[in-house]
């Protein structure tokens, strides 16, 4: 089985965000970058598919020079190949999808795994975009996957329940928490990964379809009324919810 896993590099979740001098993107000074937490599931699913069906797992990232680091993590976890496409324009998921589709076209994968969302731009749309660009099936937010022959059965979380979805290979899926339990790379593998080759490819130039005008930090800090726990405080809370907030 030929498996492509797409991973992205994002600021650590606990990073304090500041707006950069361009007023449109974040100030990257001092920001710690990590592997997108969902893409731990992405890589793990690729490895599990290989363990089950044989074949090769290729990890791909599109980003700046520093994002090669996450390819090292993927190599340490056990992927066979790493591909890096240099492109800094990270606010446009369309151009990322075009690049993923381009790499996919050159390797004809049976399965492409992406994460449910990348926690910087939280677009949620990569599986659908890549699927549509390649004319393939896609299933998003997958919490359980089984493949037999060429038929794919997946479970995905929907409002108030689960959907059971059927498709055929080749197929794109986006990984949700619960799909698997990602392994931690072992120290010797981390060391070995440092000297493994990373293939570099040029970015497919595509015109961006969206333009960011400005980034700002949410201004509306709530000024909360903080009460104690006495009976009269609780009565006051109920009154406020009725009369001031009018939500009950």
């Amino acid at each position, binding site marked *: 089985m030929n498996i492509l896993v797409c991973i992205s590099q994002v600021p650590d979740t606990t990073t304090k965000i500041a707006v950069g001098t361009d007023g449109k993107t974040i100030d990257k000074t001092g920001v710690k970058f990590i592997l997108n937490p969902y893409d731990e599931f992405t890589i793990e699913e690729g490895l599990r598919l290989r363990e089950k069906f044989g074949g090769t797992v290729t990890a791909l990232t599109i980003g700046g020079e520093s994002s090669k680091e996450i390819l090292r993590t993927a190599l340490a976890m056990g992927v066979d190949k790493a591909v890096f496409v240099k492109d800094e324009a990270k606010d446009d998921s369309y151009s990322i999808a075009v690049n993923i589709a381009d790499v996919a076209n050159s390797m004809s994968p049976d399965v492409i795994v992406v994460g449910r969302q990348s926690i910087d731009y939280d677009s949620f749309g990569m599986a659908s975009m890549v699927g549509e660009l390649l004319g393939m099936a896609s299933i998003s937010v997958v919490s359980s996957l089984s493949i037999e022959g060429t038929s794919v059965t997946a479970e995905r979380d929907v409002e*108030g329940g689960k959907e059971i979805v*059927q498709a055929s290979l080749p197929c794109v899926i986006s990984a949700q928490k619960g799909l698997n339990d990602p392994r931690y790379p072992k120290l010797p593998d981390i060391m070995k990964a440092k000297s493994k080759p990373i293939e570099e490819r040029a970015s497919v130039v595509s015109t961006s*379809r969206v333009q960011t005008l400005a980034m700002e930090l949410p201004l509306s800090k709530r000024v909360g009324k903080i009460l104690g726990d006495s009976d009269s405080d609780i009565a006051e809370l109920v009154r406020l919810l009725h009369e001031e907030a009018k939500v009950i």
Partner: protein
Amino acid sequence: MSTIVVFLEAKGSEVKRSSLEAITAAQGIAGGGSVVGIIVGGTSANVEKTGEYGLHSCSIATHSLLNNYSLTAVAATVAQFAQSVGASNVIFPATVTGKELAPRVAIKLQAGFIPDCVALDVQNGSVIATRPVYSGKAKITVKITTDIGVYSLRPNVFTARTINGASPVQIKDFAPNLSNDDVKVTVSNIVRNEGTLDVSEADIIVSGGRGLKGPENYHLIESLGKVLGAAIGASRAVVDAGWRPHGEQVGQTGKTVSPNLYIACGISGAVQHLAGMSSSKVIVAINKDKDAPIFKVADYGIVGDVFDVLPKLTAKLTH
């Protein structure tokens, strides 16, 4: 004049509220243009109601290949419909269905796509969308540079408004041109969580965290939820500990919610939790630590012990 297409979803006999919100949002950017709806599959929903919100016409798409929900066939249907009416914009509610569908339709229409919008405005004739990024720690304003724009709207952020004296909606049929090749994915079954209201569809959510100390104490959350008609939510700590099912998790790894009222009980307010609920309209926090970060986003807070406060609050509300 431009035409805006709104993708409508129904739940049983009702058009979903998130779809009605999308109609109102579309009115806001339509200028003098018209807003038309598309609903897919043999729906029994009361689509006449959409007229009260200003929908000009509602097309019901039917085809034998649409009898079973198929993402790819529905995407083809919506794209064909948008083309047939010469749409300038296509708007989806960012529900689980809308989130998966909108990017496919955008690619088919060679359109720019902005997901999860929390505001849509018109400036100098262009639509400007606002959306949260970095787990809600920042927001960006974005403009689409292609002829057609596709947007998905975060549910419960826009308010659905009826229009006085609106004319009745014209109900039409739409017959898409589909072949078997359009059916690449199908839903074979839906397993409902019986009897429970889902956090992503609730007006009020009562959520519990590690402060509850153990699953056996969750009845305190459930009792409060019951008097309020609320859905039950949970922090990741509680889900990871196996106290509550994953479907109840609110936050970055769980569900994004914006109910009218969110009551966080014994939840510290980690950024990943806030990412999922900070756009709630009113937030109440109950925590015994007055410095817990959850109080920073709360409209009302009770500094106190959940074991003491929850029964009292439930009792007060029962009367």
